[in-house]
C-alpha cells in the first residue's frame, strides 16, 4: 500500500509545487505497482483471472500484430516480384553479348493453380542471374521453387511431371519467389532464339527493371477494406471484454482497500495497475502467439497467396501503436467500468444506481456511417479508389461500431420487458435485467463480425453471380492458341489438331488460323478454316477449297477489297466471296472461340494461296475428354508437347469465381473464428459468474433444485443476448450489404444462405458455451459444495 495521502502532504511541506507533483506521481506509481502486485499475488484465483485476461488480450494482440504485418507482407512480396521482373521498360532491348540472357514466358497451370515458368538461355558468361538462383540453368536443367519441387516429387504431381520431366537440378531461393507456396521454375533451353530470329524470347541484361504486382481487382480491394474492418473491430471488442474478466473479484479487493483507508482515486489507480499488469502479460502472450503464427504461416495459403515467415513483421509504427494502445485501452476500459460501481469502505460493493442507457449517441454512429456510405451508392466500381476507400472504411467502421454500441441498449430495452415463463427463464431474465451489460458487450463482438460478414457475403454472392454470368462456368471446352511462323495457309491449324487428337484428356478438336485484315481504319479478323467446319458454322450451299465468305452484317469489308493481312501482306478479298449468314448455333463463348465466334471473314486455305504470310495465329477449341482424370491438365500436357509457348484458356471466368469463393470461405472462416473467440470469452464470463455465485447455487442445489433448471437458465442467459445480437447484425449487415451492392452497381438481393449459416453458428456458440459451463455447474451445485463455503 502506498503512503497515506496525509503523510504525503506532510512530507511535502516546504517543497514547491513541482516537488508535490513529483510526490503525487510517485504515489500514483506506487499505487499502480500495488495493483500489479494484487493481480499476481492473490493466490490461485488471482492467477487464474490474470491468465484468462492475459490469454484474451494475447489473442487480440496476436491478431493485431498480424494485421500490422500486412503492409510489410505486401511490400516484401511486391519488392521480390519487382526484383525478378524480366519485362524491360526501355524502348530498345540490349544487343546480344556476354552480359545478355534470352528468356521466354512459358507460364502454365496445374489444377487451376498458376505455375510461373521461364525458359532461359545465357548468351554470354556474364548473363544476369535471376534473384533466388546461384547460376543459370544449363540446357535441359530445371530449377524449381521448393513448392513445385515437392509437387513434382509427389503422387499428386504425376500429371504435371509429364510436362516437366527434367530432373530438378536446384531450387529457387526465397528472394526469387513471391511466396513459399508459389509454383515456379526456370528451365534451361539450348534452342531458345531471340526476336531477330523470329523467336519468342526477350533479351535481358538485368532483372528487376519494372515494378510488378497485378494487385487485387478494385471491387475486391473495396471488399478487402470492409473485411479488415469487420474482423478487426471484434478483436477490439474482445480485448475490452477480456480486460473485464474477474471484475467482481477485483471490486471486492478494492472494497477491502477502501476499508484500509484508500480513497476513490487511489482505488482507481490500483484497479488501473491490475489492468495494466494483465495487459502487459497479455502483450507477452500475444507476442508469443504471434511468433507461433509466424512459425506456421508458411504452411498456410489463402487466396492463392502465401507469405514467408520473414515477411510477417509488423510495421514499426503499427507495432508501437499495439504495444502502447492495448495497455492504455485496458486501463481506460477498467476506469470506465469502475464508473458504474460504488466501492464502499465497509467491504460492500454495490452497483451504482444503474443509469438507463441512452439511445441517441448509439444511434448517431450507424446513422453517420450510412450517411457517409449513401452518397457512394451507385458510384460504380470507381468508388473503391483513393479517398473513396477512406470514406468507405470510415463509413463501415461507424456502422459496425454502431452495431456494437446499439446492442447493450437493445438488450437492456428488451430484457426489461421480458417476464413470465418457467423457473429457468425467470432466473435468466432476472439476471440479465440486473446486469445485461457484460453479456451485451461480449456479444457486440459477435454482432459486429456477423454484420460485417453478412454485408460482405451478400455482396460477394451478387458480384460472384455477376462474374459467373459474364464468364460463365466451364462447359468442358478449352481454347488453345499459338503463334507460329506461317507455313502454307491452314497447315499449322491442321498440324496442331493432329498433334492433339487422341491424346489423353482430349476429345473433339476444332482448329482454325486467324489473321487480321486491315483496310484504312477498318479491321476485321480473317479465319482460315476447312470446308467441314465452314459448313457446320455458316449457311453455305457449297464449299470448296479456294472459296471465301463474308458474314452478313458483321464486316465493313466487301468482296474485292484490298487489305493488308497482319499489317504486312497485301491481299484482295476474292471478288467472288459470298455474303452468308451463320447457322443458328451456340453463341455462348464458353462453347469455345472456334465454335461460338465465327470471324467476319472466313476463307478456305486455297483462297490465301498467293499470300506470303510470315506468321499465323492458330486457334483451337478442344473439348475435354471427361472420362480422363485431370482432363484439362492432360490437354495442357499435350499442348505443351506441341508448343510450350501455346496458351491454354479454360473458358468460364473461373479465376474471379475462385477468388470470390476463396474470399467467401475466408470470410466465413474469419467470422466463425471471431464467433469462437467471443464464445470463449462468453464461456470464461459464464464460468466466472458461476464462481462468483457458487454460494447461492450450492444452496439452490441443497434445497433440491434440479441442475437442468439452472443449466437451462444459463442457456437462456447466453441465448437471449446472442439472438438479439444476431438480429441486429442481420439488419445492419443487410443494410450495409445493400449499400455495398449499390456501390458495385449490382441489384440489391440478399444471401439468405449466409444469414442462416451465421444464425446456425451463433446457435452453436450458445450451445457450446452452455455445454462448457455444465461441468462447473455440476460441481458448484453439488450439495457437498456447501462445505467449501
Amino acid at each position, binding site marked *: 500500500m502506498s503512503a497515506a495521502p496525509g503523510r504525503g502532504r506532510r512530507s511535502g511541506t516546504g517543497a514547491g509545487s513541482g516537488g508535490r507533483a513529483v510526490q503525487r506521481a510517485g504515489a500514483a506509481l506506487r499505487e499502480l505497482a500495488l495493483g500489479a502486485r494484487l493481480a499476481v499475488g492473490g493466490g490461485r484465483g488471482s492467477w487464474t483471472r490474470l491468465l484468462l485476461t492475459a490469454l484474451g488480450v494475447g489473442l487480440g494482440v496476436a491478431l493485431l500484430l498480424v494485421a500490422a504485418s500486412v503492409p510489410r507482407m505486401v511490400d516484401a512480396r511486391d519488392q521480390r516480384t519487382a526484383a525478378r521482373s524480366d519485362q524491360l521498360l526501355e524502348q530498345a532491348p540490349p544487343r546480344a553479348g556476354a552480359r545478355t540472357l534470352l528468356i521466354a514466358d512459358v507460364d502454365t497451370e496445374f489444377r487451376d493453380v498458376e505455375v510461373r515458368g521461364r525458359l532461359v538461355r545465357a548468351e554470354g558468361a556474364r548473363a544476369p542471374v535471376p534473384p533466388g538462383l546461384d547460376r543459370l540453368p544449363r540446357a535441359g536443367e530445371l530449377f524449381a521453387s521448393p513448392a513445385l519441387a515437392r509437387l513434382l516429387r509427389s503422387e499428386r504431381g504425376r500429371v504435371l511431371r509429364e510436362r516437366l520431366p527434367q530432373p530438378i537440378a536446384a531450387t529457387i531461393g526465397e528472394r526469387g519467389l513471391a511466396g513459399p507456396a508459389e509454383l515456379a521454375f526456370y528451365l534451361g533451353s539450348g534452342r531458345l532464339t531471340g526476336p531477330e530470329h523470329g523467336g519468342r524470347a526477350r533479351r535481358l541484361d538485368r532483372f528487376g527493371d519494372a515494378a510488378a504486382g497485378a494487385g487485387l481487382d478494385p471491387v475486391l480491394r473495396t471488399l478487402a477494406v470492409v473485411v479488415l474492418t469487420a474482423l478487426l473491430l471484434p478483436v477490439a471488442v474482445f480485448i475490452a471484454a477480456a480486460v473485464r474478466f474477474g471484475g467482481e473479484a477485483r471490486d471486492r479487493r478494492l472494497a477491502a482497500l477502501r476499508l484500509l483507508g484508500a480513497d476513490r482515486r487511489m482505488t482507481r489507480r490500483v484497479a488501473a495497475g491490475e489492468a495494466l499488469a494483465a495487459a502487459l502479460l497479455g502483450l507477452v502472450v500475444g507476442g508469443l502467439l504471434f511468433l507461433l503464427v509466424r512459425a506456421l504461416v508458411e504452411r498456410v495459403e489463402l487466396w492463392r497467396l502465401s507469405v514467408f515467415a520473414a515477411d510477417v513483421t509488423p510495421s514499426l509504427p503499427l507495432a508501437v501503436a499495439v504495444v502502447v494502445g492495448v495497455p492504455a485501452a485496458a486501463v481506460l476500459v477498467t476506469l470506465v467500468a469502475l464508473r458504474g460501481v460504488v466501492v464502499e469502505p465497509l467491504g460492500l460493493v454495490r452497483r451504482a444506481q444503474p443509469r438507463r442507457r441512452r439511445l441517441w449517441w448509439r444511434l448517431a454512429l450507424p446513422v453517420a456511417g450510412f450517411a457517409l456510405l449513401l452518397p457512394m451508392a451507385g458510384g460504380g466500381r470507381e468508388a473503391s479508389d483513393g479517398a473513396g476507400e477512406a470514406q468507405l472504411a470510415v463509413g463501415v467502421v461507424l456502422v459496425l461500431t454502431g452495431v456494437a454500441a446499439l446492442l447493450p441498449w437493445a438488450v437492456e430495452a428488451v430484457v426489461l420487458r421480458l417476464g413470465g415463463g418457467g*423457473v429457468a427463464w425467470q432466473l435468466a431474465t432476472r439476471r440479465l*435485467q440486473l446486469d445485461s451489460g457484460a453479456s451485451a458487450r461480449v456479444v457486440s463482438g459477435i454482432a459486429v463480425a456477423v454484420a460485417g460478414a453478412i454485408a460482405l457475403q451478400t455482396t460477394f454472392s451478387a458480384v460472384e453471380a455477376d462474374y459467373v454470368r459474364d464468364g460463365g462456368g466451364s462447359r468442358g471446352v478449352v481454347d488453345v492458341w499459338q503463334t507460329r511462323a506461317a507455313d502454307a495457309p491452314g497447315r499449322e491449324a491442321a498440324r496442331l489438331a493432329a498433334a492433339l487428337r487422341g491424346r489423353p484428356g482430349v476429345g473433339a478438336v476444332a482448329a482454325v488460323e486467324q489473321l487480321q485484315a486491315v483496310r484504312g481504319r477498318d479491321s476485321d479478323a480473317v479465319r482460315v478454316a476447312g470446308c467441314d467446319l465452314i459448313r457446320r458454322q455458316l449457311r453455305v450451299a457449297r464449299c470448296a477449297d479456294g472459296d471465301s465468305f463474308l458474314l452478313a452484317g458483321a464486316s465493313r469489308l466487301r468482296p474485292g477489297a484490298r487489305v493488308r493481312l497482319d499489317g504486312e501482306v497485301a491481299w484482295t478479298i476474292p471478288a467472288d466471296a459470298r455474303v452468308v449468314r451463320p447457322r443458328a448455333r451456340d453463341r455462348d463463348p464458353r462453347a469455345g472461340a472456334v465454335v461460338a465466334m465465327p470471324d467476319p471473314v472466313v476463307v478456305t486455305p486455297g483462297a490465301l494461296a498467293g499470300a506470303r504470310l510470315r506468321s499465323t495465329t492458330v486457334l483451337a477449341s478442344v473439348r475435354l475428354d471427361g472420362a480422363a482424370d485431370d482432363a484439362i491438365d492432360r490437354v495442357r500436357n499435350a499442348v505443351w508437347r506441341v508448343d510450350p509457348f501455346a496458351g491454354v484458356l479454360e473458358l468460364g471466368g473461373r479465376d474471379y469465381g475462385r477468388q470470390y469463393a476463396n474470399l467467401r470461405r475466408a470470410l466465413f472462416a474469419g467470422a466463425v473464428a471471431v464467433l469462437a473467440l467471443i464464445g470463449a470469452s462468453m464461456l470464461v464470463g459464464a464460468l466466472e459468474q458461476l464462481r462468483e455465485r457458487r454460494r*447461492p447455487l450450492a444452496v439452490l442445489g441443497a434445497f433440491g433444485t434440479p441442475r437442468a433448471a439452472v443449466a437451462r437458465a444459463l442457456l437462456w442467459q447466453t441465448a437471449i443476448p446472442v439472438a438479439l445480437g444476431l438480429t441486429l447484425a442481420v439488419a445492419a449487415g443487410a443494410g450495409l450489404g445493400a449499400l455495398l451492392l449499390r456501390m458495385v452497381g449490382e441489384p440489391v438481393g440478399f444471401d439468405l444462405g449466409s444469414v442462416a449459416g451465421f444464425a446456425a453458428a451463433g446457435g452453436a456458440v450458445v450451445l457450446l458455451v452452455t455445454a462448457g459451463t455444465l461441468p462447473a455447474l455440476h460441481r458448484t451445485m453439488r*450439495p457437498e459444495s456447501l462445505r467449501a463455503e
Partner: protein
Amino acid sequence: MSAGEPLLSAEGLRKAFGPTPALEDAAIAIAAGEVVAVMGPSGSGKSTLLHCLAGIVRPDAGRVLYRGRDLTACGDAELSALRRSEFGFVFQFGQLVPELSCLENVALPLRLDGAGRRDAERRARAWLERLEVAELAAKTPGQVSGGQGQRVAVARALATEPRVLFADEPTGALDSLNGEHVMQLLSAAAHDSGAAVVLVTHEPRVAAWSDREVVVRDGRTRTTALAGA
C-alpha cells in the same frame, strides 16, 4: 413409520474429509415437530452432522433414516426430490438468489415443486407477511438488510411446508436483536406448521429456543439436556 418412531434418525455416522475425521459414531433422533439444537465448538462436526441428516453429504458409514427410509441408500435424484419437498433450509448467509426479488426467492422452491407462478407467488406473499417482511416482496436481496434477508430465507424454507427444517447458524451473521427476532419467527412458524427443526448453533442464546440440545464434540454426539424439562 409407526407411532413413537423418530421422524429422522441417524446412527453410527462416520465421515472424514481426507485424513480429518468430522464425525465418529454420531447418532441422533428427532421426533416430528421437535426443535433440536445441535451445539458444539467450531470444527466439532455439527454442520457435517446436519449435512448428513439432510442428505447433502453422504456418510462414510452409518445410516440416516427419514420416516423409515435409509437416505444413505438413496440416489441423487431421490435425495434432491426429498430436499425439495420434505426439507427446508436456512443458512448463515448468501443463500438468496441475488437476481430474483424476495417474493420470487420465496416462490422459487414452490415453483420447482411444480406450483404455477401465480399460485406460488400468492403462497410466497403469505409467508412473507407471516415473517413480517411483506414490504420487501419487490426488492432484491442486495437491497435488504441482513436480518430482513434472513427472514426472507426462513419464509422460503417454510414455504413448501417441510416436515424438517434444517437451520445452520441462522443468526450467525446477525446482531443479537435481529437474531432474537429471527429465531422467534422461525420457531413460531415451524411450530405452527408442525415442522421439526434441526438447529445448528454455537450460541446458547439461540439454542435456548430448542426443545432439546445435542452436543457434538470431536465428531461424537451427546444429548445433554431437554429444554424446559
